[in-house]
C-alpha cells in the first residue's frame, strides 16, 4: 500500500522533529543545570566563608591592638599567608611577563611582592581601626571566581561608607582564597599590574628591572 503524503505532512514532520529535539535539550538542561547551580552555590558559600573568617579574624585583632608594630607585622603576615592566594596574585600582577621570567626571578619577585603587600597594610594599619565590613551580596564571576561585595563603615560615623568588593578564587579542588580587593570600583591588583607592566616596558621588557624598582622603594622607606 502506497503511503499518501498530504500537503501538511512535511511541515508536521519537521515540527515534530524540532519539538522532539527541543524537548530533549530541555530535559538535558534540567539534568545539567541543577548540578552547575549547586556547584555555583557551593563556590559562593566558600567565598563568603573565607571573607567572613578574615573579617572576624581582623576584628578580633583590632579589638586588642595596642599599636605594637611587631605584633601588627606578625598578624598581617599571618593573615596574608592564610587568606590570600599570593602565588596567583604574583602571576597576575606581571601579566605576560611571568612566562619570560626565570625561575629565580619568579621566586625573588614572589617574595618582594609579598613584603611590599605586608608593608602597605602595616603602614596603613591605623586607617583600618574602627572599620567594620558588612557584606551585601556575592556574584559568581565565571568558573573561577566569586565577587563578595559589601562596604566598610566607620563605627564612629566620621568617615563615609566605602564600597568594597573581594574577588575570591574558588577552585574545585582547593581552598577558596582572596585574589583582589576592589575599593570604590578600583581594583588594587589591576592597579598593581598596570604599574608593573609600565616599569617592565620602560626597561625594554626586562623583568629584573621591576624587582630592582620594588626593592629600591622598600629600601628607601
Amino acid at each position, binding site marked *: 500500500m502506497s503511503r499518501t503524503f498530504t500537503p501538511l505532512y512535511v511541515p508536521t514532520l519537521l515540527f515534530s522533529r524540532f519539538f522532539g529535539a527541543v524537548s530533549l535539550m530541555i530535559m538535558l538542561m534540567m539534568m545539567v543545570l541543577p548540578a552547575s547551580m549547586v556547584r555555583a552555590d557551593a563556590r559562593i558559600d566558600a567565598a563568603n566563608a573565607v571573607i567572613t573568617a578574615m573579617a572576624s579574624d581582623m576584628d578580633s585583632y583590632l579589638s586588642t591592638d595596642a599599636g605594637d608594630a611587631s605584633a601588627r607585622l606578625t598578624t598581617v603576615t599571618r593573615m596574608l599567608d592564610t587568606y590570600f592566594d599570593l602565588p596567583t596574585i604574583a602571576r*597576575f600582577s606581571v601579566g605576560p611577563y611571568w612566562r619570560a621570567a626565570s625561575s629565580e626571578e619568579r621566586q625573588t619577585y614572589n617574595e618582594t611582592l609579598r613584603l611590599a603587600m605586608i608593608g602597605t597594610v602595616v603602614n596603613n594599619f591605623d586607617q583600618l581601626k574602627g572599620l567594620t565590613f558588612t557584606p551585601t551580596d556575592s556574584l559568581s564571576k565565571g568558573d573561577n571566581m566569586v565577587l563578595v561585595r559589601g562596604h566598610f563603615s566607620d563605627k564612629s560615623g566620621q568617615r563615609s561608607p566605602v564600597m568594597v568588593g573581594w*574577588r575570591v578564587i574558588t577552585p574545585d579542588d582547593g581552598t577558596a582564597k582572596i585574589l583582589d580587593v576592589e575599593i570604590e570600583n578600583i581594583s588594587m591588583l589591576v592597579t598593581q599590574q598596570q604599574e608593573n607592566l609600565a616599569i617592565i616596558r620602560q626597561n625594554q621588557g626586562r623583568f629584573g628591572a621591576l624587582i630592582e624598582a620594588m626593592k629600591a622603594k622598600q629600601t628607601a622607606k
Partner: protein
Amino acid sequence: MPCPQRQFTSTSITALLGNGLLCLFLAACSATPDTAQTDSRDPYETTNRQVFRFNMAVDSAAVEPVANAYRHSMPEAGKTAIENHLDWTGLPATTMNSALQGRFENAGLSVLHFAINGLTLGLAELTEDPREVKPQDFGQTLAAYDVPQGDYLMVPLFGPNTSRSLTGRVVDAVTNPLSLIKAGGTATVVRSLQPPARVVVVRARQFEAINDVKYNAADPYARTRSLYFQGRAGRINARVGQPTANRTSDDLFESFFEAEK
C-alpha cells in the same frame, strides 16, 4: 557704551585663559613612539610624564602643605561650609548634564538642592540627604552619547584627563551660569578663589591616598594613570546605572584564567 570685553566676568576670562593654556599644551604634546609607550591609551606618554613631574613639584611646594594645614587647622564647621559651598557651585553643571543624559530625576533634584541651599549660598546643607544628587559632568554626557574617551592627557595643574573628560571640563567651566552672573567685588573675589579652594579640598579629602601614590609607588605616574582610568570608568558605569560593575577588571581576570588553562 561699555567695551564688549567688559561683558566677560573675571571667572569666564580665567576659564578662557585656562582653556587657551590647555590648547597650547595640547599643541605642544608630541606623540611617543609605540616602542616607548607603556600603555596604548597614552600616546603622549613622554610629554605626560614631564607634566606629571611638574605637577608633583607644584604639589610638594604648595598644594600638599596647604592641604595639610587645611586638614589640621580649619575647624570642622569651616571645612563643612567650604565643601558644601563648592558642591553647591557644581549643581548647575549637574542639572544641565543630567538633563542632556535624560536623567530628569537627578536634574530635578539638583535644581531643588541648588534652590534650597542657595538661601545660604550653599554654605549650609539644608536638604535631607545631599548624596541623593549624583554629580554629573559634560565628560559623562559625552560618554552617554558614545563619544570615544580619546587619549590620556596629563594637564599642567589640572592633572589626569582623557581628551573627552578634558573637553567636558572646558564646557562645564564655560557654561556654568554662576560664572556669567555679574556681581560686585566681593563676589568676584569669592569666585576667583573657588578653583584653588577646590584643589585644596580635593587634596585634603584624599590626602593619605594621594601621598601613598606619590611616595610609595615604584612608578607613581603609571599608578596614577591606572587609578584615573578605573575611577573614571566607575563614574561612567554609575551613569548607566551599573555602579558596581567593573568591566575592565572582569575582562582582565577572564583573560588571565583563559591564558592559565
